[in-house]
């Protein structure tokens, strides 16, 4: 008998904690809960509840897909840290996906611009085309001025700032990247820290 696959999805780069479990290609459970700077408090209890509902433990998982940002720095670190630890402790592989792709996957079809506010008129954005349940990337993830980014888009688009990711759409796409060394996995922040930026500017 082949071992069935049990894939855990984790993303914490947006205002919501997102967890999903896909068993043998079927979405068996998910939770997408908006929080107020408290992903660190809620994520493991939510994961514990989800696994208990499915009569599973962390040791039953076969692989992990983690949103690696861009998005909230503190937020994305929580999801990535947890994914690293689960992957390492159980010796299971991790694949990464853009947190913006996860956000965009919540849309049914059309040209989709996922949007995570980064203050000062900037946002983390990208652009995807979704047709017949197939999702293709049009623009890379960027941290950009919102109006400047919009000016680059020639066709009608929809901005998606919240929504429950469609993990099956993600699994069907080519937007997943295997992680060769779990210990070396870090979030995709899309920009250096302010301190590093200032240092580089001064140099």
């Amino acid at each position: 008998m082949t071992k069935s696959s049990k894939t855990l999805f984790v993303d914490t780069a947006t205002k919501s904690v997102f967890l999903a479990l896909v068993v043998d290609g079927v979405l068996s459970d998910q939770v997408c809960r908006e929080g107020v700077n408290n992903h660190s408090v809620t994520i493991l209890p939510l994961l514990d509840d989800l696994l208990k509902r499915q009569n599973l433990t962390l040791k039953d998982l076969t692989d992990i897909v983690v949103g690696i940002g861009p998005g909230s720095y503190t937020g994305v670190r929580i999801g990535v840290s947890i994914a690293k630890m689960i992957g390492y402790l159980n010796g299971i592989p991790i694949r990464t996906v853009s947190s913006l792709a996860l956000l965009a996957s919540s849309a049914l079809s059309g040209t989709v611009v996922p949007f995570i506010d980064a203050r000062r008129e900037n946002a983390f954005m990208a652009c995807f085309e979704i047709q017949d349940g197939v999702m293709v990337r049009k623009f890379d993830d960027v941290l950009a001025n919102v109006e400047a980014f919009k000016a680059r888009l020639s066709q009608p688009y929809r901005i998606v700032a919240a929504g429950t990711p469609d993990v099956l759409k993600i699994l069907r796409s080519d937007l997943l990247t295997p992680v060769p060394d779990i210990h070396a996995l870090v979030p995709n922040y899309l920009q250096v820290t302010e301190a590093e930026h200032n240092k580089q500017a001064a140099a």
Partner: protein
Amino acid sequence: MYVLGVESSCDETSVAVVKDGREVLSNVVLSQIDIHQAYGGVVPEIASREHVKGVSMVFDQAIRQAGLRYEDIGLVAVTNGPGLIGSLLIGVNAAKVVAMNYGIPLLGVHHIAGHIYANNLERPIEFPCLALVVSGGHTELDLMNGHFDFVKLGETQDDAVGEAYDKVGRVLELPYPGGPVVDKLSALGKDVYHFPRPMVDSPDYNFSFSGLKSHVINLHHNMTQRNETIVKEDFCRSFQDAVTDVLCQKTKRAAKEYGVKQVIVAGGVAANRGLRAKMAQTITDVPVYFPAMRYCTDNAAMIAAAGYFKYMKTGVADDLYLNGDSRLALN
């Protein structure tokens, strides 16, 4: 009982395995000091990024060096505050995953309690005990009447001792962190400036180092303006004598007032040789203990030791809702 300790409150990612609160089987410390050196101090966002990068590797090294499996661990003890919140959250969440993965009890431990219990790794603490905690983030006197029974007698009203050291080091253009360098240069200098001893005679057990720090900085500035020769060794010695006089005098008075059996010094500044020497000269009627040098700075062995005694005393574990708290109180 084997306790897995986890510490990530500032710029060190550390995981340790300690048996029965005393015997250190492993204590892996991934220090970021070389990275922050370029900025003259800890940059919180960089610290958080480094913690994520190193976290799982440090766990792996700690459990391997201990020669154990996670199934052998009886308690996961993690620093849940105080400290840099972004840093704390990495250790807390990583610890939660280990606890959840193996069904091990989880316990949040106060960072200062950890520093105090670093002393227990050398010899059992005897009560009542007076603890002077001196580090880059803390300066306080705590009375302990038993395990995990802390009464704060006083604390700094402004800068922590280590913070003042680092700022004086920066003014003197010494490499970061300035504390150990100031200590080293002090040994070669004389107290020629007789800086004020802030609050040395105040009836309470509080401290203040911000005024002293400004005094040192102002004098340095004025002398530079007048093109006077600055003897760094003398500056360091004068500053260090002022600081250690206050720390030693207040500690001595508290030790007498509360009739303690021993005095323990904890935290990064406990590594300061000038403080070690003066404390031993000042307090002669009860023993004064310092942790081994390697347990003075942030490490997870001290958190594991403190976690063990906290768990033995209360028997109560935390649940998966445990959070980091940058301003967590000791009691």
